[in-house]
């Protein structure tokens, strides 16, 4: 599914947070947004998900205007936000329940993904009993089950330790072969963006503006251009 973010502006108390941001995510494309801390990345995802309306601009999904309306795209926020009151299986089925699917069927559907998401055997555990990496995978599965065609991921691995984060990045890269959704992925980790994304957008400090774009697929495997691209992005972010 295609996602088009058109000229989105948003200000808070007359201070601009987002300044005419336009981003295009093609069908099944993985787009990463890099930007300095506090530049407005989460605000952008809040707007795309429909939680807050933009001051200007439009959100088009498959050509249809979804500006300011919730319930279309999957949104995974910075924290895993699993309900401590439900075990992993029952957490993951929440989006299915909200769509009116019966509990038993929802459990069956969700459970068929457990092996791929590295959650098998932990269905009955509560979030407090699991490691950070597992909780993120559960949150990711819940996100996927809500709408599998467009996922918004807001720094999903930022709270993990370096080793677990690396494992999760590789896992996400591999799993995308079987689950080719359109993804808009926010991060401030350059390596993470270059490992995972097909295309990268770089934001300026607040107010966020797109200052650089990179087609990663064109340079993947070419170590020299990869390194110079990395340097280029680093310079833009400084």
């Amino acid at each position: 599914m295609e996602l088009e973010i058109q000229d989105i502006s948003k200000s808070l108390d007359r201070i601009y947070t987002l300044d005419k941001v336009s981003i295009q995510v093609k069908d099944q494309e993985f787009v990463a947004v890099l930007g300095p801390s506090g530049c407005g990345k989460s605000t952008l995802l809040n707007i795309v998900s429909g939680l807050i309306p933009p001051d200007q601009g439009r959100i088009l999904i498959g050509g249809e205007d979804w500006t300011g309306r919730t319930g279309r795209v999957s949104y995974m926020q910075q924290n895993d936000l699993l309900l401590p009151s439900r075990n992993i299986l029952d957490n993951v089925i929440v989006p299915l329940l909200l769509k009116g699917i019966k509990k038993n069927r929802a459990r069956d559907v969700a459970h068929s993904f457990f092996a791929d998401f590295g959650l098998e055997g932990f269905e009955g555990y509560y979030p407090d009993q699991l490691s950070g990496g597992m909780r993120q995978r559960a949150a990711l599965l819940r996100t996927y089950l809500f709408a599998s065609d467009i996922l918004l991921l807001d720094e999903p691995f930022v709270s993990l330790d370096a080793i677990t984060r690396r494992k999760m990045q590789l896992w996400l890269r591999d799993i995308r072969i079987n689950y080719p959704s359109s993804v808009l992925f926010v991060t401030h980790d350059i390596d993470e963006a270059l490992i995972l994304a097909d295309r990268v957008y770089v934001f300026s400090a607040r107010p966020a503006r797109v200052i650089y774009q990179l087609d990663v697929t064109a340079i993947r495997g070419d170590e020299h251009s990869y390194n110079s691209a990395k340097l280029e992005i680093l310079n833009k972010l400084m």
Partner: protein
Amino acid sequence: MRKSANIGLRLAPWLVFVLLLTVWEMAVRIWSLPLWILPAPSRVLQTAISSFHLLLDHTMVTLGEAMLGFTCSVVLAFLLVFFFNLLPCLRQALYPLLVISQTIPLITLAVLFTIWFGWGLLPKVLVVILVCFFPIAISLIRGIDGVDPEMIDLFRSMGASRLKIWTMVQFPLALPSFFAGLRISATYSIMAAVIGEWMGAQQGLGFYMTLLQKNFAVDGVLAAVLIICLLSLLLVKLVELAEYLLVPWQRTNTIHY
């Protein structure tokens, strides 16, 4: 090693309890204190057993009042929270009053209630509600306020209705806090009913105690106190059992990788 230390710690309060009773029993015997000043624990127990049927009748009355007041408090607390949720301005207006209401001396209100409503069931239940409602309502409100707003945003982003957000997020996540308040209320509910009866009644443990007190039957009074303690403890345990059953996610905390 650690296990035996744990058992020792668990037994400690019981040991202290038995020790206190022994000292009490010995003191009464050594100085042969008269019955109307301080009866020995053994005597209190005897009285409790010999007047068992009478005590039981009065206990049932008190328990009934306490339970009725307690249940009303829970229902009222939920109604209050419901309306606070519906109309945030109502909360602005009522919350400070709710807190101030707690500073009014309970005894004076209990007296007023008997003047207004007579010696029947109503004034007792009102006293129980006055005592129990506040901890329950506050803990419920705090529990709901404590829910991460991002969690609610997440559910909104999935298109959940307000009712769904309440049943799936706010209510379950408020339960641990709610039970903390429920426990406090359960502890005081019996005592509140007794205070209500003390101000004027024709039955119940409080009424019974005023009779005994007038006759200097200290052993009877203490027997009633024993019942009140046991009953309060029983209620707390029941609340804990309910919490154990309804909040299963807080039972264990082992981490798996």
